[in-house]
């Protein structure tokens, strides 16, 4: 129907790009998807977009299946935010082998393994570890050496959970602040609240809680409030979902990290289009991660 | 022992206690090649004794010898291994397995554990043939059979295997005469083959027909063993009841007139309360037309599987009819309707005492009080919905007295009661409700002679109070004793109606066969009934 773009005279159909995400059930990825859709609407003449996410962020098999289903629908490019930095590589490779352009966003494929493969998959996205480090540094600035903090992590084994935890630890170590406890709360608000409450009970001296995402940060806020130590215990999160943002503005949270999710997918798509056009794979590109603090930008 | 060689089974000083002592020092012998009847009122301990012999329970003390050898079965299985087999009082089939698989359950496959269904079917057919059940397809799942047929399959299962000592615990409770004759035919064969048979039944006539010797149990004690021909009905009833004499003198009314008279309710036909018109249900019965009058007891006879249970269930709204319907006096019979569920039936003043007490009647592991009071809960509570436990307990106690239900405590689970007493609990539930029309499906099932008379009297009283009653019974005696009018179902169709002067066992029997044509379903002409 649409006018074929010059670089695809080979096939008359418009380009089809699949965006495969970790989940479509939380704000961060919803923003990502919306950003992508807006971009597609603006460039409707260039490509069609199919957006998919898995029901449970840790279900690799289902995401692999998604990629295959997209391959089945003969897309020209797949922009993927992998649920795991290793588990998704084989299928990505198969896609690439079929001549489908694969672009990796949000969380990075494992470098060594990728290197070991005969393909190159460009990465566009934030460095979770660096981002967490930044947030950690902002927190450290509020604390003094020797203070006690605790980390509430995501699903153990989830790649970005590990990255963010590592980033937090880097920052704390740098400011030699003591991490008294590291516990997982599976990205979940209620679970985080319970874990945080327990940690607070066990550590009367606790000065801060570092949470690997904002949902858990919200839980931590509740726990701190209930323990009557609001103000004494600082809380930082990650992702800058709107609820967390308002808490940061109101000062109940110290800071969170903004990865510009809405841009992320767009960058990926632009990369894909570029490769489809030029056949050249551009270099990896780290997108910015900014710390959101009270008063600072949304 | 008279003869030199030891009896097939010798029991002495057997004790068994559950909550209370159930068997106290039983001495008992069974000779090879005899049919030994075991009689006793409900809860006397018959089933328990047999359960001990069959290895289901273990005695507390006392010992058993099987043809001289010490015999202590560790389980039903080990008992069967030594040739002792039992048909239990309650059904123990696997509903979702086929008849064939049930019949051959403990010898299903070859050494590799693989089943040869053809072989299975063949041996099943053979087993069924012995009870003249050729019309049953071995592949039918047992759940598709009526209770009576399931009982026959159960018997066939036991008969199908080699046996030295056979125990039958009320095998005929759900059977009709032709099958009973068939069964007795088999028993005679076994007897002459030198098999010892323990036979439990509450039906005097049967005892006199088949038994060589009779032993009477009372309250867990074996109080007499005599030759059957030396023992008449009065004596048996007397022994079972014991010195604490039965409230009502034992009697076996034989004709409708007799009953009617004996109950003082000269059968004056009241006004019609229910009209059944062209009622039919796929695979069970067709084109049933009947009128039911206040103050009458309508008996329904027929062979097993003739559709009686289904007819009652349909009247009660438990199953849906495919054709026709009923008219009620409430709206002057203006509306031909079908009750959609039991709740509607009760609203319309109809109650049903079901046939399958275990599966569809009782809450086995719940208290006697709850089981009897279940139907009343809806009324016995205050505005807040708080149950009036006192009232329920009182009612239950009263019912237990009326039907003399042998129990230790109203909070006792019904499962702990003997079969007959369980049946009485079920009946009690319905006596407590004041309904205009009551349907009884095999009310006397497993109930001892005296209680049976009690129940019959109660039913007559209901009629006398102007209620209308339908009684399905496979026991011709019971029908004659109870009913003002008897209709017979044959293969799901009405096959005749009888009143006091036209009825006879022979007539009922002939009617029962009327609509069975195919060779398979035709049953051998019945023997004369002594």
């Amino acid at each position, binding site marked *: 129907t649409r006018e074929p773009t010059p670089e695809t005279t080979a096939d008359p159909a418009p380009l089809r790009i699949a965006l495969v995400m970790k989940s479509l059930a939380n704000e961060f990825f919803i923003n990502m998807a919306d950003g992508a859709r807006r971009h597609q609407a603006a460039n409707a003449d260039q490509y069609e977009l199919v957006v998919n996410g898995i029901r449970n962020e840790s279900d690799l098999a289902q995401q692999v299946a998604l990629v295959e289903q997209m391959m089945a629908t003969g897309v020209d490019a797949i922009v993927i935010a992998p649920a795991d930095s290793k588990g998704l590589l084989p299928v990505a490779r198969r896609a690439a082998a079929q001549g489908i352009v694969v672009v990796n966003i949000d969380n990075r494929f494992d470098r060594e393994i990728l290197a070991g493969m005969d393909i190159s998959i460009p990465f566009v996205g934030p460095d979770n570890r660096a981002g967490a480090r930044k947030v950690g540094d902002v927190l450290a600035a509020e604390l003094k050496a020797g203070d006690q903090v605790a980390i509430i992590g995501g699903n153990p084994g989830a790649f970005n959970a590990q990255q963010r935890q590592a980033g937090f630890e880097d920052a704390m170590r740098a400011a030699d602040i003591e991490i008294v406890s590291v516990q997982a709360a599976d990205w979940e608000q209620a679970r985080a609240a319970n874990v945080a409450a327990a940690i607070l009970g066990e550590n009367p001296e606790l000065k801060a809680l570092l949470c690997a995402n904002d949902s858990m940060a919200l839980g931590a806020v509740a726990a701190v409030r209930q323990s009557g130590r609001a103000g004494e215990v600082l809380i930082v999160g990650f992702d800058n979902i709107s609820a967390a943002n308002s808490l940061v503005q109101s000062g109940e949270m110290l800071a969170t990290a903004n990865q510009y999710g809405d841009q992320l997918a767009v960058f990926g798509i632009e990369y894909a289009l570029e490769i489809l056009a030029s056949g050249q794979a551009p270099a990896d590109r780290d997108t910015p991660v900014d710390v959101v603090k009270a008063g600072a930008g949304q | 022992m008279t003869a030199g060689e030891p009896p097939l089974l010798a029991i002495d000083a057997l004790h068994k206690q559950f909550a209370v002592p159930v068997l106290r020092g039983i001495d008992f012998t069974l000779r090879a090649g005899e049919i030994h009847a075991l009689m006793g009122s409900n809860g006397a301990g018959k089933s328990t004794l047999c359960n001990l012999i069959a290895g289901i329970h273990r005695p507390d003390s006392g010992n058993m010898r099987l043809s001289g050898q010490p015999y202590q079965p560790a389980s039903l299985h080990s008992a069967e291994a030594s040739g002792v087999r039992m048909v239990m009082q309650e059904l123990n089939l696997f509903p979702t397995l086929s008849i064939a698989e049930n019949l051959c359950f403990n010898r299903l496959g070859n050494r590799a554990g693989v089943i040869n269904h053809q072989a299975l079917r063949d041996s099943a057919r053979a087993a069924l043939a012995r009870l003249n059940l050729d019309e049953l397809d071995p592949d039918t799942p047992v759940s598709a059979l009526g209770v009576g047929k399931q009982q026959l399959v159960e018997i066939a299962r036991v008969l199908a295997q080699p046996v030295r000592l056979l125990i039958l615990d009320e095998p005929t409770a759900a059977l009709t005469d032709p099958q009973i004759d068939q069964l007795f035919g088999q028993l005679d064969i076994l007897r002459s083959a030198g098999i010892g048979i323990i036979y439990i039944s509450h039906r005097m006539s049967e005892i006199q027909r088949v038994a060589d010797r009779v032993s009477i149990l009372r309250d867990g004690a074996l109080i007499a063993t005599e030759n059957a021909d030396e023992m008449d009905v009065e004596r048996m009833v007397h022994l079972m009841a014991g010195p604490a004499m039965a409230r009502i003198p034992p009697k076996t009314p034989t004709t409708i007139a007799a009953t009617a008279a004996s109950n003082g309710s000269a059968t004056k036909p009241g006004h019609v309360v229910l009209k059944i018109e062209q009622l039919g249900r796929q695979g069970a019965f067709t084109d049933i037309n009947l009128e039911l009058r206040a103050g009458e007891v309508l008996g329904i006879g027929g062979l097993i599987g003739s559709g009686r249970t289904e007819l009652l269930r349909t009247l009660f709204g438990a199953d849906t009819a495919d054709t026709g319907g009923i008219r009620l006096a409430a709206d002057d019979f203006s509306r031909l309707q079908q009750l959609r569920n039991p*709740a509607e039936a009760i609203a319309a003043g109809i109650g049903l005492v079901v046939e399958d007490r275990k599966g569809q009647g009782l809450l*086995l592991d719940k208290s006697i009080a709850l089981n009897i009071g279940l139907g009343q809960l809806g009324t016995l509570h205050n505005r807040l919905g708080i149950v009036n436990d006192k009232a329920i307990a009182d009612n239950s106690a009263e019912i237990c007295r009326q039907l003399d239900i042998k129990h230790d405590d109203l909070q006792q689970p019904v499962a702990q009661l003997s079969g007959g007493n369980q049946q009485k609990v079920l009946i009690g539930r319905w006596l407590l409700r004041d309904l205009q029309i009551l349907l009884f499906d095999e009310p006397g099932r497993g109930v001892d002679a005296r209680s049976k008379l009690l129940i019959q009297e109660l039913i007559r009283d209901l009629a006398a109070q102007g209620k209308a009653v339908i009684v399905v019974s496979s026991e011709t005696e019971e029908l004659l004793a109870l009913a003002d009018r008897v209709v017979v179902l044959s293969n799901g169709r009405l096959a005749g109606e009888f009143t006091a002067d036209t009825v006879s066992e022979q007539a009922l029997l002939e009617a029962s066969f009327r609509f069975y044509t195919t060779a398979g379903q035709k049953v051998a002409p019945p023997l004369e009934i002594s």
Partner: protein
Amino acid sequence: MSPSIVGRIRLPWNSLGLVAVLLVLILLFSSLSDYFFSAVTFRTLANQIPTLTVVAVGMTFVLLIAGIDLSVGSVMALCAAVMGVLMADSGWPLVPALLASLLTGLACGSFSGLVSARWAIPSFVVTLGMLEIARGGAYLVTGSETKYLGPAVGRIGEPIAGLGLSPALIGAIVVVALAQFILVKTVFGRYMIAIGTNEEAVRLSGINTVRWKVVVFAIAGVLAALGGVFQLGYLQSADPNAGIGLELSAIAAVVIGGTSLSGGRGSVVNTFLGVLIIAVMQTGLAQLGVSEPGKRIITGLVIIGAVLFDQYREPLGKLLTRRYEPKRGIS
């Protein structure tokens, strides 16, 4: 088991084993952590249990009639979401929003109950479907965003001055008491037990089993909603991903409380004890900072251990069960 469930007489005795397990856990954690046995910890617990408690009470009723409700987690999320959106976006005041949320729960529960009772579909399947549907609904109404409400709902979860107990906790305790009363004293309670024991027998004694089953699921739905409200008060925000896996925790609590999965036997009080056992264990493990694998393994062992212990505290009970319920729905 024995008739005792019907007569309240033996209830306390039945609870003994659970109380023992609970005490053991408390002693254990107190000895392992200097801070466990403290007001703080118990305030923490008091904040956590209301949601699980009310949901588990609803689950107890459902299991009593030999049903199951897998949808409680999603339904809770949906109801919290509805309340959150109404307050945050549509600016409704607390009470009407709260009622709307309870109504949502009522609707979900009634739907599940109606479909499964009226058409005799296993409730497992119907509520499995509802689990998906309600979760989808939660995403829809929130646009998959966590709704932050702030102090507006705070008072639900904050201790009432002087009393030291939060409305949520009080509400939960009232629910437990009321439910136990209903179960033991009222006709409805008897019907639940009877239906769970032998539904057909109950139907054939002229009781409208369909209606009562629907009522039970409706109650479970409302209680799930209430749980959502409590959580909303606690977290001051509505998360569309809340309550994932809640059904298993709830069932675990109920079963630890000795309620039979095949229906006809159970006690709300014991369910509450089950909830406490789970909550104490989670808090304790978190306070000790046990590693994630450790937490999982210990949790698993405690679940099995608690039931095993409870079972054998009263071997006679077991024999009776063995003897009279050869056919367990889910053995």
